[in-house]
C-alpha cells in the first residue's frame, strides 16, 4: 500500500467514524426535510386558532349577513342591534370584532368597517373582503335581471395554462422539446450552489484544523522521515474529499428515498398536487438528473481541491486556530462573493455577471453549478472546468511551498506577506 493511500485511508477512517460525522450525516436530511415540511404544517393547521373568533355583523343592508359562512376560524353572528349597543351588549363581550355593513353596500362596497378588540390579521381581512365581494356580486347579478347572466359571466372567465418547453436538439433530434420548469431549475440551482459553498467551507476548515493539529502536535516531525510533506498534505486533502463525497452520497440516498416516498404518497391524492408541481416533477427526467450529478461532481471536486489547498497552506502557517482569522480572508472573501452573486444568477442566469463569475475559477464552482440547471452552452462549462482545474494545479503547487516552510515554523504568527514570500524559498 503506498504511503499516500495510507494517509488517505487514515484521514477517511478517522473522520467517518467520528460521532459528529455520523450524527450530521443522518440528521441533516431530517433537518432539511423538517425545514420544508414545517411551513406546510404551519400553513395547514397554524392558521386556525383553537376557538373560532366571533365576528358580530351589524348589517343594515340585509344582503351581506345571510351570505357569510363560518370558515377559517371565523364565526359570524348577525345582530339586529346598532353597532353602539352591540358593542356594549354583555352577550357580545367575548366577540373578537364587529363588522358594520352600510345600507347601500351593493351600490357602494366601501361601506364596510371592521372594529376589532385585538389587532386583526391580513388573513381575517382577506376572508371578510372575499365573502362580502361574493355576496355583493351575487346580489348585483340578481339586480341586473338578465336570465342566465351568471352562466354567461362564468363562460367569460379565462384561465390560461402556460406550458413551457425548452427546445433541445440533443434530447431527441430536430424540434424535440421537453417540458421545463423555471421553478425547479431555480430550486436545483440554489440547492446545489449552496451545498458546494457549504461543503467547501466546512471541509476546508476541517482540513485547516487537521493541518494545525499535525503541526502543533509535532506529528509531522515524526513522520517526515518516511513521508514527504506534500504527500501528507495531499493525502489529507484527498481523504477529506472522500469523506465529503461519502456524506453527500448518503444524503442523496436518504433524501431520494424520502422524495420517492412523498411522491408515492402524493400520487394517492394527485388532485391535491398543484399543476405547477406536476410539471416540475415531470421535468426532472433521468438525463437531467444524471447531467446535474456529473456537473456537481466535476465542479464540487475542483472547487473543493482549490480551496482545500489554500486552507492547508493557512493551517501550516499557524499553531492554533485562533491565529487563522486574518489569514483566512483571501479564502473566505471569494467564497462569500460567489454566494452573493449566486442570488443574482438565479434570477438571470445568462447575463454578463453570471457568465464571468462562472468562468473565473475562484467563484466558478458555485456560480457554474447554479447556472447549469437553466442550460449553459457546453463550451462554457468546458472552459470553466479546464480553468478551474488548471488553477487548482497552480495553487496547489504554491500552497505546497507555503506548507513546506510553514509546517516546521514555530513561534511568531506570520503575516500574509510573509507567507507569500515562502513561495519563493527553494524547497
Amino acid at each position: 500500500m503506498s504511503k499516500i493511500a495510507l494517509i488517505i485511508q487514515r484521514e477517511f477512517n478517522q473522520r467517518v467514524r467520528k460521532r459528529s460525522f455520523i450524527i450530521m450525516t443522518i440528521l441533516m436530511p431530517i433537518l432539511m426535510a423538517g425545514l420544508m415540511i414545517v411551513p406546510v404544517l404551519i400553513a395547514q393547521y397554524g392558521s386556525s386558532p383553537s376557538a373560532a373568533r366571533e365576528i358580530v355583523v351589524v348589517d343594515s343592508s340585509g344582503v351581506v349577513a345571510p351570505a357569510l359562512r363560518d370558515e377559517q376560524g371565523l364565526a359570524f353572528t348577525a345582530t339586529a342591534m346598532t353597532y353602539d349597543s352591540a358593542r356594549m351588549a354583555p352577550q357580545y363581550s367575548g366577540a373578537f370584532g364587529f363588522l358594520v355593513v352600510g345600507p347601500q353596500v351593493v351600490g357602494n362596497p366601501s361601506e364596510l368597517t371592521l372594529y376589532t378588540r385585538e389587532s386583526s390579521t391580513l388573513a381575517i381581512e382577506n376572508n371578510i373582503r372575499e365573502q362580502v365581494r361574493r355576496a355583493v356580486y351575487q346580489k348585483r347579478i340578481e339586480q341586473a335581471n338578465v336570465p342566465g347572466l351568471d352562466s354567461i359571466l362564468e363562460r367569460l372567465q379565462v384561465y390560461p395554462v402556460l406550458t413551457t418547453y425548452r427546445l433541445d436538439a440533443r434530447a431527441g433530434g430536430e424540434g424535440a422539446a421537453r417540458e421545463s420548469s423555471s421553478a425547479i431549475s431555480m430550486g436545483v440551482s440554489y440547492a446545489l450552489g449552496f451545498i458546494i459553498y457549504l461543503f467547501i467551507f466546512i471541509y476546508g476548515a476541517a482540513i485547516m484544523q487537521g493541518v494545525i493539529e499535525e503541526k502543533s502536535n509535532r506529528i509531522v516531525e515524526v513522520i517526515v522521515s518516511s513521508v514527504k510533506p506534500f504527500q501528507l498534505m495531499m493525502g489529507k486533502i484527498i481523504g477529506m474529499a472522500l469523506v465529503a463525497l461519502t456524506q453527500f452520497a448518503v444524503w442523496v440516498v436518504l433524501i431520494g428515498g424520502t422524495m420517492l416516498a412523498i411522491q408515492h404518497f402524493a400520487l394517492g391524492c394527485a388532485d391535491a398536487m398543484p399543476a405547477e408541481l406536476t410539471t416540475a416533477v415531470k421535468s426532472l427526467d433521468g438525463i437531467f438528473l444524471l447531467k446535474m450529478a456529473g456537473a456537481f461532481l466535476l465542479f464540487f471536486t475542483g472547487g473543493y481541491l482549490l480551496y482545500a489547498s489554500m486552507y492547508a497552506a493557512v493551517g501550516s502557517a499557524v499553531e492554533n486556530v485562533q491565529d487563522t482569522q486574518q489569514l483566512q480572508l483571501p479564502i473566505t472573501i471569494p467564497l462569500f462573493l460567489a454566494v452573493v452573486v449566486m442570488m443574482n444568477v438565479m434570477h438571470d442566469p445568462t447575463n454578463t455577471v453570471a457568465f464571468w463569475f462562472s468562468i473565473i475559477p475562484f467563484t466558478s464552482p458555485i456560480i457554474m453549478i447554479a447556472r447549469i440547471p437553466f442550460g449553459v452552452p457546453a463550451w462554457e462549462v468546458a472552459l470553466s472546468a479546464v480553468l478551474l482545474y488548471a488553477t487548482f494545479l497552480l495553487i496547489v503547487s504554491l500552497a505546497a511551498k507555503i506548507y513546506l516552510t510553514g509546517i516546521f515554523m514555530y513561534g511568531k504568527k506570520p503575516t500574509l506577506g510573509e507567507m507569500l514570500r515562502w513561495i519563493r524559498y527553494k524547497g
Partner: protein
Amino acid sequence: MGDILSAENIIKQYAGHRALDDVSLSVPEGSIYGLLGPNGAGKTTLLRIINRITAPDSGTLKFDERPMTADDVCRIGYLPEERGLYKKMKVGEQALYLARLKGLDKTEARTQLEMWFRKFNIMGWWDRKVDELSKGMAQKVQFIVTVIHRPRLLIFDEPFSGFDPINAQLLRDEILNLRDEGATVIFSTHNMASVEEICDHITLINKSRNILTGPVDEIRRSWGTGSYRVDFAGDPVQLAGAVDGLCSSEPAAPEASADADRLNSLVLTPLTRDIRVRELVGRINETVEIHGFREMIPSMNDIFIRAVEASDDPTEK
C-alpha cells in the same frame, strides 16, 4: 568503523540570534552519542537539521561519509522532545499507522508492535485514546514507533524526560539493545548519569557553540586532576608524612557511609605526572589501614558545569 553521520561547520541563524555557530561533530557507526548542553543551547536545532526538518544556513551534513540526501532521512528514526501523536486516535491503531507509513507491511507491523507493547507492558492500552495516556505512557508509545522500522540511526530528543527511574532503566536497556543490534544512537539530554552509563561519545554545546567533544572516557580522564582519594583508619598527619615527596595532600570531606566517623579521608595529588601507583599504595599501606583507594575521575556532571561556566566566562581560562 567509519562515521555514520558527520556535521561540518553548521551555522543556523534565526531572526535576532544565532542558534548554531560553526558546530561540527562526527558520530561513529555503532556508538551512542550524547548531545549535551544547557537549555536553549541549540541541541534541538541541530537534531532538526540532521533530520532535514530545517536547513542550515551553511555547513554540510554527511551520511555514510558522503553528502547527505533527502533519501537518507528514511534511515533515521526521530523522537522529538514534544510528543508527536494524534491525540484523538487509539494507541494501537496509531502505532500501526505510523509503522506502516515507515514501510512495514500490516502483519509485520502488528507482530513487531505487539512484541514491543508486551516488552513495555502497555498491551492493555492498545484500544485507549492517546489523550488518556500519561506523559510517560505516551513517551513509551512514541519510542516504540520511532524504533519500529529498525532505522540505522536513531535520534532521541530528551528521551528520559517524563520517566520514573524504573521506566528510565527499561528505556536505557532498550537503547543499549538497539546499539548491540547495530543501530547508532544520538540523544540529547540533561541527565548526566545516563550519559556516564551509556554514552560512548559526547558533544557539549553551549550558547550555539561546540565547546567539548570526544569519547566519554577520554574526556573524563583529561578533565581529571590525576588525584587519588584514600579512605583509611589511622592518623592523617602520619600518612601525609609518609607520602611526602610524592604527593601533596589535603583533607577530603568524608563520604556518607556506615563507618564514616571511624574513617579519615585525604586527597592526594601527585607532584609529577609519572607517579608509580604501586609505590604510592605501598607507602600508604605501611602507615595506615586502607579502606578505599581510587583515582578521582570527575563526573560528567562536574565536567558539564565546569565546561559551561568556563565558556560563559572566557576571561577565566
